[in-house]
């Protein structure tokens, strides 16, 4: 390996940017989809409907008991078998990530909802608000505020996990970097660059989480 050649990175930038776009896009979809799904699961788990709550718990524990890579495989290989037609790599990965993150976000949101004092529920219900109004107007805003740092941290982990999509031949940022590294035989340059990009983005995410958490402390 000769001297550090930055031009190989510059030449590959469009290709790498496309990979980064997939990683960030997948992170965004999985975060938003996972939050929505996680919220539904959390509310069901805390509701009075025992059977539904148990099913929701089963879902969460099931997804948290298996590695993400296995979930990706399931949706890529098994779901097409069930449906009788291929789903496509991107869609299977999107679904797998949303369902997987939904399990994790539901636990964060459930902890957040439970951390709101029972008196808040009682006060809201005493004023005639319905259960769903109470969740939406009184409890959830408080829970989200408390949980914002954790949710951002989970997003950082999620962003790193998007590198797993190489198993279904999708080109995320990490996969793109490793393709260039191997085809150009510039392993050091590409892997140093990839590490720097991950480091920068994840540090920014952690800093945001830190700030949200100190904002919260100031507010109380």
């Amino acid at each position, binding site marked *: 390996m000769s001297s550090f050649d930055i031009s190989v990175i510059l030449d590959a930038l469009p290709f790498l940017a496309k990979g980064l776009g997939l990683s960030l896009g997948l992170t965004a979809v999985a975060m938003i989809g996972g939050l929505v799904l996680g919220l539904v699961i959390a509310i069901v788990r805390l509701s009075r409907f025992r059977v539904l709550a148990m099913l929701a718990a089963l879902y969460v524990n099931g997804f948290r008991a298996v590695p993400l890579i296995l979930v990706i495989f399931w949706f890529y290989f098994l779901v097409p078998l069930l449906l009788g037609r291929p789903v496509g790599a991107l869609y299977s990965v999107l679904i797998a990530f949303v369902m997987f993150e939904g399990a994790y976000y539901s636990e964060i949101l459930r902890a957040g909802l439970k951390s709101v*004092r029972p*008196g*808040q529920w*009682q*006060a*809201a*219900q*005493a*004023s*005639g*608000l*319905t*259960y769903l*109004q109470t969740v939406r*107007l*009184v409890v959830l*805003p*408080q829970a989200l*505020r408390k949980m914002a740092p954790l949710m951002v941290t989970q997003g950082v982990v999620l962003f790193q996990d998007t590198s797993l999509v190489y198993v279904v031949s999708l080109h995320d940022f990490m996969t793109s970097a490793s393709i260039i590294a191997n085809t150009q035989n510039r392993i050091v340059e590409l892997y140093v660059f990839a590490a720097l990009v991950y480091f920068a983005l994840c540090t920014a995410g952690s800093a945001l989480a830190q700030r949200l958490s100190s904002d919260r402390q100031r*507010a*109380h």
Partner: protein
Amino acid sequence: MPPVTHSPATRDSVNDMVEMIRIEGLSKSYGDVPVLRDCSLGVTRGEVVVICGPSGSGKSTFVKCINGIEPVQAGRIVIDGEDLPSKPAAAARIRSRVGMVFQHFELYPHLTVLENICLAQIHVLKRSHNEAVEKARSLLRRVGLADKEAAYPAQLSGGQQQRIAIVRALAMDPVAMLFDEPTSALDPEMIGEVLAVMLELAREGMTMVVVTHEMGFAKAAADRVVFMDRGEIVEVAETARFFAEPASERARLFLSRILAH
């Protein structure tokens, strides 16, 4: 009922006929532990009833059952002629007609004072934003907190928070107000300002059920006193008589302890 000699509040004798709250045979238990046993009570319009008793006697639970935020196993609750449904969702509309004030205020910490007072007005009573704000401001002026409408609860003292909690309940134009130990969480120097607001409400003829240890408030404002012990209503007496000659041994014991200091 004989005329109430010690109560400063003058009541319209016609109103005494109208029953605002009727509770019949209320029973509740947590698992095997009974917390309320066969409690019955009627409260007429404009009446102020104070509920007292040793801690753990079930009085807080009882008052929370009146508007259905604590589920009960047996019994019937009638508010202004309407049966409170046992299903919590169906009870929401009737619940909105009974104001509730809690020991720990329970203002919503993520909302300003004004938003706290407007929330249920807008989402339950479907009042317009302007209507709700106007109502909130006029009530805030009455309790002397007009300058606090933009503050968040955490920026206010306990006494201020509790007065705002009372305003939040009053903004719904309730037919009755329930108070669950409204001064127990307050520093001593703030109890007076909250009791003053409650006393004024009582004088204006609000129907009130108040769980409290403030016997001074009971003497000044209550028409009747309910004494509870171990989940039972032991005694219901007209205020002056309750303090002068309580009928039950348990009430006598309780009074001797609480009035000793």
